């Protein structure tokens, strides 16, 4: 069980850093500062963070930034990186055209 309010008090208030403008998610252009700030707004899981800021929701689905986000969030939560669970993996593993996905019945889809 995680007491969100207590945890927020433990980690203290958000403090701006010089590198807050640094891009973390290249696809959706989410910065380090946005991620750090969101943690102080109660966003503690990658699942929530993706939904809140769209990091990892773009074309590459977090394959590039997943680890970076995890470590930024863990540091902000004053925890080790394994505290922050990775996002669940979902099909399709690569971006695929609807037209191609639609053809799965052995014959061409008309």
């Amino acid at each position, binding site marked *: 069980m995680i007491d969100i309010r207590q945890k927020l008090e433990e980690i203290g208030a958000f403090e701006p850093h010089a590198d807050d403008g640094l891009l973390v998610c290249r696809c959706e*252009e989410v910065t380090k500062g946005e991620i750090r700030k969101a943690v102080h707004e109660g966003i503690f899981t990658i699942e929530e963070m993706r939904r809140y800021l769209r990091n990892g929701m773009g074309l590459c689905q977090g394959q*590039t930034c997943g680890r970076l986000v995890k470590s930024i969030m863990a540091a902000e939560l004053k925890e080790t990186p394994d505290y922050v669970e990775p996002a669940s993996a979902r099909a399709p593993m690569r971006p695929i055209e609807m037209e191609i996905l639609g053809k799965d019945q052995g014959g061409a889809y008309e």
Partner: protein
Amino acid sequence: MGRIENHPILGASPEGKMVTFYYNGEPMEGMEGEPIMAALKVNGVMVHRYTAKTHEPRGVFCAIGRCTDCVMVVDGKPNIRTCITPLKAGMKVETQYGVSAKEA
């Protein structure tokens, strides 16, 4: 950046058929079947697109189709990963702004 003509381990580079394609309307030469990215790089093109939110330039990053940073508008279709899409004669390759070929 150029092609590697002769490599100490891999030897002479395979010879391919040179074809013409169009980069933002200008004709360019590339080797048929090589990734579009390779032909662009040989021709000195570094910027493949500008991002939607902050309009930053982007180019090749992972080169294996994973990071999707190298996407361009190819034959009118946006978001084509140029690092894994083979070059064909006559292809129209355009700088992508956000998700379209026109500057917003």
